[in-house]
């Protein structure tokens, strides 16, 4: 018998020792103050933890989990492109997902942009996998959406949390993990309209550096004024991984900054 047999004491408290071991430990515990105190403490702890209620998964978390599968189809295709090394030819084609929100099936809130499973207004969906890879190849961020949402600072906070969740998913799925990598692979000059105008307007107001990369732009309204909502990912330096997601709200007419928020990724 070792001095204080932790392994056996765990099983002792759980009642899973075989009879001969249990007899041995009974005797030990009787004669050892330390162990007998510990057994009492361990029992108390076990009861306390067993009594913890199982919490329900918060609705916001369930929603985020449901969206994971929707994002997957986009990234599977993009990775297939990367694997086949079609970079040179594909670089000339930029994939942008244009989504017009409105009464749409499966949408529970306005303006959930980001890589959707189906897209409206983008280049026609091809039938073969290889063609799809070509069209989706090239640079797919920032994603762009137009919605009829009218944000205020509070609903903006909600939207920011959703975008943060999408950004985390995208990063886990292969989004370029630093500013330097992003700008090396992106030629934002080739973004098609209206995304290009939107990005240019936002850039004028926000003036991002190489540490800050555009993730999603939404053309909507802010307190009744037509505005772009632009989410950028930001790092401490061009080579570091992003630490924050920054939301800029920019007036569409004169490209002035209306609102700004930032939170850790």
């Amino acid at each position, binding site marked *: 018998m070792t001095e204080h047999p932790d392994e056996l004491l765990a099983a002792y408290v759980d009642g899973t020792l075989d009879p001969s071991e249990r007899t041995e430990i009974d005797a030990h515990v009787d004669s050892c103050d330390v162990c007998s105190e510990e057994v009492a403490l361990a029992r108390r702890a076990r009861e306390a*933890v067993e009594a913890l209620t199982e919490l329900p998964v918060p609705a916001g*978390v369930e929603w985020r989990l449901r969206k994971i599968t929707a994002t997957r189809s986009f990234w599977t295709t993009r990775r297939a492109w990367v694997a086949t090394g079609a970079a040179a030819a594909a670089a000339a084609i930029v994939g942008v997902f244009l989504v017009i929100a409105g009464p749409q099936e499966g949408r529970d809130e306005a303006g959930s942009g980001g890589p959707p499973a189906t897209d409206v207004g983008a280049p026609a969906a091809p039938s073969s996998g290889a063609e799809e890879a070509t069209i989706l190849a090239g640079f797919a961020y920032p994603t762009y959406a137009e919605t009829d949402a009218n944000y205020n600072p509070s609903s903006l906070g909600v939207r920011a949390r959703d975008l943060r969740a999408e950004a985390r998913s995208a990063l*886990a799925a292969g989004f370029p993990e630093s500013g330097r990598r992003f700008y090396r692979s992106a030629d934002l000059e080739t973004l098609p309209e209206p995304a290009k105008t939107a990005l240019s307007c936002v850039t004028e107001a926000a003036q991002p550096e190489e540490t800050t990369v555009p993730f999603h732009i939404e053309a909507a309204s802010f307190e009744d004024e037509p505005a772009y909502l632009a989410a950028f990912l930001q790092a401490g330096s061009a080579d570091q991984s992003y630490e924050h997601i920054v939301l800029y709200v920019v007036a569409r007419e004169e490209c002035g900054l209306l609102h700004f928020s930032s939170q850790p990724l």
Partner: protein
Amino acid sequence: MKTDEELIRGFLGGDRQAFGELVERHQRRVYNLSYRMLGRPEDAADATQDVFVACLRKLSGFRGTSSFPTWLHRVTMNVCYDILRKRSREQPAEDALPEPAGADHADAAAVGVDVQRALLQIPEEFRAVVLMHDALGIPYEEIAEALGAPIGTVKSRLHRGRVALARALGREHGGGSDGSKRADDRAP
């Protein structure tokens, strides 16, 4: 009802719905384990999402040598450790405990908060085993497999973890730990 393995095969064969079912089946356990390990709802939300995103990416490599829940527990613990490491880098000295419970310790909700606070005071490797065994009812062997640790280590951490937790709980309740030997402390 389909088994986890059937759902996984279905998903790998192109049935995206199958993954959704897998998530729904396991999300509560993953969320609860994460929340009890991390102590903050926002971190638990991030952890749960990270777990299932990792799951999605790695599912094609899942060989079925351990059961899916064991594999999922391993992923969950790795994600939680990552978040805890990140947290300790960002706030080295900060006490990450939730708000103190009210004065009325008879309230069941307050007691739960006390236990949660005490859990956050014990070392993470102890916390992991105590939660997996006592909160989630996972047997020693599966915990050992999930954590990649010998079963003896698991049992040892379980015992030391419980003792540390009881002492932390004693401190939470405002007194020293109660070391008195009770007459009924023998095994049944």
